[in-house]
């Protein structure tokens, strides 16, 4: 039987944490004293607060929706301390991308082989900073296995952006972010091919609504089985496995590349 870890959370993410851990009563419990694991809000300064938690003895840190900050220092501290840091992102952390089977990734990879366009749109609530939305969006696209190159900012406004770039074969990429309260905060990644397409629609994580993964080929269309698990719950399970096994996670290393890209693009 795996270990049960005691958890504390920063106030800003206490509700999110409680909701996710209510479905993991065997793996986690509330900490009355020093926690094994701390949930940290991903707003500005999260790298410093996460590093401080590790210095205080936390064996694991879960960062909810991190903004683009350079995580290399915290990554080094975590490695030295043998602590694990998991990034909890609604889109990139969706279980269709982070838990086996890898059918969604296989579907995207299949489309990428003869892609003519990758068109992606991300919706967020009004007031969401363009850089914040872009960070989440880029993480989601990369988590789908879409390789991007030559990215450049076409439009950057307080409420959105348009990024253009290329896929490995030279096909165009368009990443569009916009804000509205009228639509769910979803990210859709569409890879069009000469004979069909693959669409991955990633939901917000406030509920356990499933992602939608659909592929169209010359033979018809296929929708992958739904998985009613929130990205929050899946992130906690990933962190549990890492702390329990002592094997680290590579979330920070992958995030470092995105954070650097966002800094360059938003200048």
């Amino acid at each position: 039987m795996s270990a049960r870890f005691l958890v504390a959370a920063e106030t800003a993410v206490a509700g999110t944490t409680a909701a996710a851990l209510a479905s993991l009563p065997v793996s986690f419990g509330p900490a009355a004293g020093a926690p094994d694991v701390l949930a940290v809000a991903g707003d500005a300064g999260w790298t410093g607060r996460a590093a401080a938690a590790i210095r205080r003895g936390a064996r694991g840190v879960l960062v909810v929706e991190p903004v683009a900050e350079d995580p290399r220092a915290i990554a080094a501290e975590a490695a030295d301390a043998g602590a694990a840091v998991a990034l909890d992102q609604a889109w990139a952390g969706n279980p269709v991308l982070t838990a086996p089977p890898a059918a969604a990734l296989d579907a995207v990879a299949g489309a990428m082989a003869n892609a003519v366009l990758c068109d992606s749109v991300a919706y967020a609530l009004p007031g969401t900073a363009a850089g914040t939305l872009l960070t989440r969006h880029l993480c989601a696209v990369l988590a789908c296995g879409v390789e991007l190159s030559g990215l450049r900012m076409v439009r950057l406004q307080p409420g959105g952006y348009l990024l253009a770039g290329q896929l490995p074969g030279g096909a165009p990429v368009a990443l569009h972010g916009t804000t509205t309260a009228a639509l769910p905060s979803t990210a859709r990644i569409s890879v069009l091919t000469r004979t069909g397409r693959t669409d991955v629609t990633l939901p917000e994580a406030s509920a356990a609504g499933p992602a939608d993964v659909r592929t169209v080929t010359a033979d018809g269309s296929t929708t992958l089985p739904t998985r009613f698990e929130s990205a929050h719950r899946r992130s906690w399970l990933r962190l549990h496995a890492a702390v329990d096994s002592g094997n680290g996670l590579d979330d920070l290393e992958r995030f470092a590349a995105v954070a650097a890209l966002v800094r360059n693009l938003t200048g």
Partner: protein
Amino acid sequence: MDVDPAVAESVAARVGARFSTSTDELLADPEVDIVAICSPHQFHAEQVIAACRAGKKAVLCEKPFAMSGQEAEAIAAVSAETGVPIIVGAMHTFDPAWLAAEAAWGSLPGQVHTIRSSIVLPPNPRFEDFATEVVGRTPPPGRPQTGPDADAAMLSGGVMGLAIHDLPLVRRFCPDFAQVRVLHAEALAPFGYVLSLQAGDTAIELRAAMNDTWEPDWSFEAIGDDAALRIDFTPSYVQAGSATAWIRTREETTVFGPFGHNGYEGEWRRLAALARGTGTAPSAATLIDDLEFALAIADAAAGRVRPAAAAAAEARA
């Protein structure tokens, strides 16, 4: 009427009509109430004007109804002088789901800051062959050599032949449409485009891909902070009913359609009403603005990928 007598005879025979190879003969026929112009683009203006001068009850012209703002204004002047109403075959503007959403959207246009149009279409024969019996199909033109000129031609053709279906819809949500700028333009293989536009405070994203998929996917979105419109259109050619439209707010979603007829039939219903004297045609100003909006985007998109054209456009500006 067709300049090819075999085509003219074949088409006329299907509906028991007389045929001609002469536009003048057709327009002189007092039994012709409505003229539908489906000729190559470059003949549209001349033929629309001639139909108006002939005193017909209404004219339907396939889009685009002219190839320049000057032609469009000449048409509008003749239409005003003769009183002959003109409808341009932008079928989505006659789709009953669009019209129902338009009647219900209230203050939505004032808050829209983002527009997305995405058109993914299979080869036309997939639908043409269920809409009629095609005789003597003309093979699609092969894509010219790759390069800036080929890309420019594809972008311009894509805007005037494909995006133009939805540009009148886009314009409804762009008070600053006259200031439209093309920020980014790319051609897709084998045919399509990625266009990023800005008109005042409104961001406009246009996508299209025509390839060998079997699944049509034609959507239009107008997004504001507190409300959003989405329309999923049925494919071209076939009588597959209307689009379905959704107006969403944080509190509710209102659905419009699908209804039993599409925008093609909507055009002809409007024409019939005009011929009976019971309908109203779009204003000439609307038609001119729609056309100039499309032409501006087509020219600028081509200019983005063709340096010489870009330089010329800049010099004109």
